[in-house]
């Protein structure tokens, strides 16, 4: 018996010794990427994968400044042209060298991607100047060229060209159905994929030829498992079955914070959750005083503190702090007395009835927030008939504008204020696509003009002033009801040093992760 135990200890210690150099990170997200093609779906999952297997031209630092990646440096050579100088000596996983033609190829593919082409609409072309220099050219002066360069993850154009054994064009971008690029990948990123069982596990291995020799990252293997249920994900971390989880469900934050073996990091995110008041359906909502009354009746702080358990920052505007349009003066304004007097002034002291729709599995605690908001509106005699739906059924209803009040959360893909206004607040226009998610049908020509004007302004300070003006108009008009910015949370076991690699975009730079 004792001999047997000793043997066991010996084997165990050998196992530890041999794994000292090789660090494996066991990672659990709520879902795994649905495709390996970086252009198939514009989603957090795709971008997280892109940062592991590919590298962008530039990327955001934690403070939202830009960090050179595959572009070593850049310069604005004309109001509508930014020249990028590519890093030399970078190779793809296939062994092919990174050249300007790969960037041009990738850019052209982005322009064809149904999901990404909207973002790249202001761009005219990418042009190779020489093997290591590329110009990104926009149709007119455009202030967000660099913001969009964070979406350019050069793909290996040689690897993705030609036909595969099934005769499919390797470059093909298929939204629905299998393609070469949805199962095969060659990027310049810190990791290659060695094993993939969709929905079960995805295994990454560090790329030996990775160009970034200065990266402190020491993880040699990542095993990513999707765990959909929040409590199970937390339990897997607590029991030591995984090392790193995201997202962390708000209900478990206290429990993880209290644990000595777990590092929990929360951060204010940039997704804003709002309510929209449909002026087409409800004549009363056309009265600014009624909208103002509603904004004053909703207790944002209460929702953030009680329902979100501090896991949200109450919002009075769309742009979170740090965005050019953010104005500190525009704070939430809960004041029930004032709300009642506004209703009285508008002649609706007796109130009225409306319908409301909210998703129940899209945003953190979405349906609870909706219930609370409905209860708050009851206090100014607005009777709310609330219906909550799973997101798959919610969106068709949203598109049909099937209720008087809609809940919607929005994240700005450009990390810029104008994006919020373009989708949520500009007058809905099918042909231009502006106001696509403006379920309040709020229309203000002045605001439209200002937002359009901001799209061609390259003077940062002047542009910020203008975008702040946009926020002020929305605030004073009570065009919609901002509730809060949802927070982000990650948790890892002690020794997995996640703090330096996570950021407000929720794209952990796992290539730089250090595990003790």
């Amino acid at each position, binding site marked *: 018996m004792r001999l047997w135990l000793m043997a066991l200890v010996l084997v165990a210690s050998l196992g530890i010794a041999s794994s000292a150099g090789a660090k494996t990170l066991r990672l659990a997200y709520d879902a795994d990427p*649905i*495709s390996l093609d970086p252009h198939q*779906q*514009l*989603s957090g999952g795709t971008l997280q994968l892109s940062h592991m297997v590919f590298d962008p031209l530039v990327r955001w630092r934690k403070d939202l400044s830009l960090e050179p990646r595959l572009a070593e440096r850049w310069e604005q050579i004309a109001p509508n042209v930014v020249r990028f100088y590519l890093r030399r000596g970078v190779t793809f996983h296939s062994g092919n060298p990174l050249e300007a033609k790969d960037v041009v190829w990738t850019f052209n593919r982005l322009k064809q991607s*149904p*999901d990404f082409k*909207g*973002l790249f609409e202001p761009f005219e072309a990418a042009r190779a100047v020489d093997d290591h220099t590329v110009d990104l050219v926009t149709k007119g002066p455009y202030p967000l060229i660099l913001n969009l360069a964070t979406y350019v993850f050069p793909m290996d154009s040689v690897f993705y060209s030609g036909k595969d054994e099934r005769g499919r064009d390797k470059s093909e971008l298929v*939204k*629905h*159905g*299998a393609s070469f690029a*949805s199962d095969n990948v060659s990027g310049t990123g810190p990791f290659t994929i060695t094993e993939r069982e*969709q*929905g*079960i596990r995805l295994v990454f291995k560090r790329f030996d030829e990775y160009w970034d020799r200065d990266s402190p990252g020491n993880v040699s293997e990542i095993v990513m*498992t*999707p*765990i*959909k*249920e929040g*409590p*199970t994900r937390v*339990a*897997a971390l*607590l*029991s*030591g*079955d995984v090392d790193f989880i995201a997202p962390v469900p708000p209900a478990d934050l206290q429990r993880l914070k209290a644990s000595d073996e777990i590092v929990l990091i929360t951060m204010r995110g940039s997704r804003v959750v709002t309510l929209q008041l449909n002026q087409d359906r409800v004549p009363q909502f056309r009265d600014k005083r009624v909208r103002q009354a509603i904004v004053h009746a909703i207790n944002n702080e209460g929702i953030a503190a009680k329902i979100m358990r501090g896991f949200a920052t109450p919002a009075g505007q769309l742009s979170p702090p740090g965005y050019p349009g953010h104005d500190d003066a525009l704070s939430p304004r809960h004041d029930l007395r004032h709300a009642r007097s506004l209703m009285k002034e508008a002649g609706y002291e007796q109130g009225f009835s409306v319908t409301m729709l909210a998703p129940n*599995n899209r945003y953190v605690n979405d349906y609870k927030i909706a219930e609370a908001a409905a209860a708050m509106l009851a206090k100014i005699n607005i009777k709310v008939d609330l219906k909550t739906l*799973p*997101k*798959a*059924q*919610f*969106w*068709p209803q949203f*598109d049909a504008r099937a209720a008087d009040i809609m809940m919607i959360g*929005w*994240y700005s*893909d450009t990390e810029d204020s104008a994006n919020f206004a373009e*989708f949520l607040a500009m007058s809905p226009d*099918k042909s231009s*696509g502006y106001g*696509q*998610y403006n379920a309040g049908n709020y229309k203000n020509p002045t605001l439209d003009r200002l937002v359009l004007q901001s799209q061609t302004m390259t003077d940062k300070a002047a542009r910020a002033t203008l975008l702040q003006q946009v926020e002020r108009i929305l605030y004073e008009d009570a065009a919609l009801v901002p509730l809060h910015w949802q927070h982000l949370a990650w948790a890892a076991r002690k020794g997995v040093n996640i703090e330096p690699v996570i950021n407000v975009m929720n794209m952990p730079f796992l290539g730089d992760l250090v595990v003790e």
Partner: protein
Amino acid sequence: MAVISTIGFGVKASLGDPTRELAGDAASQVEREALRARLGLDDPWSVQYARFLGNAVRGDLGTSYVFKRPALEVILSKFPATFELVLAASLIVALLSLPAGLYCALNPNSIAARAIMGLSVLGISVPIFLTGIFAITIFSVELGLLPSFGRGETVAIGPWRTGLLSADGLAHLVLPAMTLSSIMLPLFIRLVRGQMLDVLDQDFIRTAWAKGLPPWRVWLSHGLRNAAIPLVTLGGLQLGTLLAYTILTETVFQWPGMGFLFLDAVNRADVPLIIAYIMVVGAIFVTINTLVDVLYVLIDPRVSLGVQAR
């Protein structure tokens, strides 16, 4: 099966629009409509149904939007995981409910019997979701004995990936199987007890005692065998219920089986996968019921298919 397919296809419209999940929030209306057209979602219901039936006859239940592979193939690749989970849970139910039920029937007034019956009430009333989370909290988080999620290491035997042949796979099976069985165990303990009490009260048992047979023969050969018929019937039917509960159990434990896949498909409005699941589960129900009928012949001394019983 035709009825099942019609119903499955009938609810399709209310399952939601898959294009948002596929295309992302920022995709324009135009892009989404193009995608709908490509998926054939804009055709009239009858056209879509006819197309579905035509393909189904050839064994093609459509292509999953998310997996981008034939839906039937995706479902069947998850079947082993679910099968092993149900098998393990049924074994637990069978192995525990028989002795416990027998004990309670033979010693109805003992403290242990009362404790078992009391616990079984508790077992019935706790939702399986909670049972699962409790089990994870106690056995994985607090005691650190068993893994909290997934299937662990699997061994491939042909197309079948089994978790039953490795220690890791078996360790991963314990908690989900326990949780799943918790929903059936109380029911079967009560059933075994009730049936046995009934049977033990009958004349032929008294005759058996009078013949001077040893107690174990009276209880098992005469008692249990006659009590077993309703048990098998109900067991077969409840196997279906067990299959339904795998949806919750698999979701709690991130068990990569058909039930987990189904819930995920519902969330993503992956319609072909949902319909394929309904069809496959329907087929399983039909098969089980047929098997139950066959089992009758083997167990019930009164039913025979013309073969002379002893």
